[in-house]
């Protein structure tokens, strides 16, 4: 006998369950399965991008791992599960983190300086980065985490009430909760809110292309330039990330990059220079690059914080390779917190860490030389 209500359900789950039960009562042909669904808790959403295979197997095509799942198995990202020969995304409607953050934290330096974004995350991730700062959420199944009792409507109205210019899908890996993200993003667009995605971009071509058409910009984390770093530190391969970056560029979406400089793993300025040269050749010299200080966490607690001199050497290498906007993140104060016009050298946005001290950009242009500055400067 299915359980109709659980005493530990949240208010949202109770209402959703009751609504589904009422709907189930109206649909006689699907009565039993609807009753089962109504008893299961938050809305189950069938995932996109998968194929059904014989014998109730499925193959997911969201990311290059292309997981083949038997009935009852979960994808490597921990969010998608084969249930009765269909793939369901268990991160749907299960936000585990919500926060109002400065846009600079994403990090974005060329998007609406000083604005705020509502950050959203659900559990799970298709990478296994050894230094993940949010590993308690990213390396867990969504249903095993404390879920916030917040509906999608509340997320959106909260964004507006807090005067955020939009949302940022971040903290864990948005590829894991892609279905949830896309539903919120669609509604956000209708309300004139912006959508940004902070991702490792280890994703198949079609999903990233579809997503790029639905959001305003990306901050992509490049884990290293040598393949060995990607495999050793994150457990995946670099190639698909570069493909994803080129698709984002093809779709003309705003893009910034972040590279966490990990002592002795990927901190060789030559490696950063090689990466920067590829970025310049394939994405353009105006793509902002953020070189971020590493902090010991998770399975990399034995390493020290990145010395600032190491980061400065990587900055020099990236600039020498031809990138025009290179920043330092997670270090403040630092001269590379500021935005400087690459044409005339004028400081156009002064920052102290995530805080904007002064923004002199006018109409998207440098106030001194009037050259257009790449970025999104108005809402």
């Amino acid at each position: 006998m299915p359980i109709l209500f659980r005493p530990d359900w949240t208010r949202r789950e109770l209402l959703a369950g009751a609504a589904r039960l009422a709907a189930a009562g109206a649909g006689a042909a699907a009565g039993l399965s609807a009753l089962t669904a109504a008893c299961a808790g938050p809305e189950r959403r069938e995932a996109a991008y998968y194929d059904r295979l014989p014998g109730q197997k499925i193959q997911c095509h969201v990311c290059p791992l292309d997981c083949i799942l038997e009935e009852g198995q979960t994808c490597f990202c921990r969010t998608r599960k084969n249930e009765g020969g269909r793939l369901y995304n268990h991160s749907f409607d299960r936000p585990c983190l919500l926060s109002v953050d400065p846009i600079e934290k994403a990090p974005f330096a060329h998007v609406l300086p000083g604005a705020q974004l509502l950050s959203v995350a659900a559990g799970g991730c298709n990478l296994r980065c050894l230094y993940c700062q949010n590993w308690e959420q990213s390396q867990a199944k969504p249903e095993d985490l404390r879920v916030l009792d917040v509906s999608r409507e509340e997320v959106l109205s909260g964004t507006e009430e807090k005067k955020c210019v939009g949302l940022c899908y971040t903290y864990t890996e948005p590829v894991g909760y892609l279905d949830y993200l896309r539903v919120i993003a669609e509604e956000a667009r209708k309300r004139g809110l912006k959508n940004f995605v902070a991702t490792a971009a280890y994703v198949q071509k079609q999903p990233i292309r579809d997503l790029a058409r639905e959001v305003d910009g990306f901050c992509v984390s490049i884990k290293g330039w040598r393949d060995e770093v990607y495999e050793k530190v994150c457990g995946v391969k670099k190639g698909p990330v570069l493909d994803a970056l080129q698709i984002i560029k093809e779709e003309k979406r705003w893009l910034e990059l972040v590279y966490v400089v990990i002592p002795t793993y990927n901190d060789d300025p030559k490696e950063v220079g090689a990466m920067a040269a590829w970025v310049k050749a394939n994405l353009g010299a105006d793509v902002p690059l953020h070189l971020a200080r590493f902090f010991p966490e998770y399975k990399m607690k034995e390493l020290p914080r990145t010395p600032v001199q190491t980061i400065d050497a990587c900055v020099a290498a990236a600039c020498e390779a031809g990138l025009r906007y290179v920043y330092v993140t997670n270090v403040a104060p630092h001269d590379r917190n500021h935005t400087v016009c690459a044409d005339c050298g004028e400081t156009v946005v002064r920052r102290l860490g995530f805080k904007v001290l002064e923004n002199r950009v006018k109409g998207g242009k440098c106030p001194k030389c009037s050259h257009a500055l790449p970025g999104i400067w108005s809402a």
Partner: protein
Amino acid sequence: MKTLLAFLLAAPVAIAADTAAWEDQLREMGHLLYLTSGANVINGLNLSRDQAAQLRDLARELEGSGASVPEAEGAFREDVGRVRDTYRDLYQALSNGEEVSDALRARVVSARAMESAAIAETLSWDPDAQRGTCARCHQEPGSPLLSPRTPVPALAKQEQGLAHITGGVGTRGLLPLARLSKKVDRILTDAQKAVLSEFPCCLVPPKGMSDPVRVGQADVSDQALEALEKARAASAEEWPSLERRLLAGAERIEFLKRPDLSEADKAALRERVGAVYEKARTMSAIDFELSKADLARELKGPGPQQAPDDKKAFMAAFFLLSPGSGDSYDRLIARMDRPAEAPKGGASPSAPADGGT
């Protein structure tokens, strides 16, 4: 028999002579606190090698001008001695650029509690003591001025800042410090000065990177968030006893910062903190999630007042040139000149399976 009697009479005198004067113990403690705070700031300002070298030279110049590292002669009282030892360990860790371990953090919190208790125990206003000296507010343990104690009047707190600075650099160090502050001001960038203008005396750097500007300020927001969530989760029956524990905790934390906390201060604190918890308990889920950072800041209370503009350079110099800080700069420069070392061992990420899990 006479020999034994002489020995017994002499022993307390001998023991008393071996114990450092209370004022000297406090002065050494105070200096250690400022030196350690200074090490925090030196690590957190992202000084260039050139800046570090220049500041080191100025710190040595200040010492040469008469500002001295106070060293009490004689034994410390047992509890204060333990505080001193903990602060010394912390100073060593910070000067070596090491991460402060959880164990050391816990020791520092205990030490600070002991220090605050020792200060509170001996805090009593002596209007007859010379202005600007320790004895105006800090009395010897067992002094008649402690029974009863006289609260330090609000007006006297204006003396306190200068008295503490004098304790940190010595009377002879004040004028040289003022002179050198102009040179320090020329060495620092605007961004570094902005960080220093908000820096209160603080021993332990933040663990995380939630805000990379928080140079030396201990990050209490994780504990604050946890407390807020517990407050929300408590039922109507559970709340009164939880509230008592949370308010007592808030009082303990405030006491670490302010050993002079009066009963009136405690009542005001409880009211302020209690109101924040009540607000958190009545918010909707979405309001709470989006406001919790602000609530955590409200729990912490108003931050330290910024020094007036004409005093900012002086205060920056005070933290950066503390007598003995040349050593911190030497070690920082040595680290800058040394390449990063390879890690030992290390984990690998779990490899993706061919299919699902």
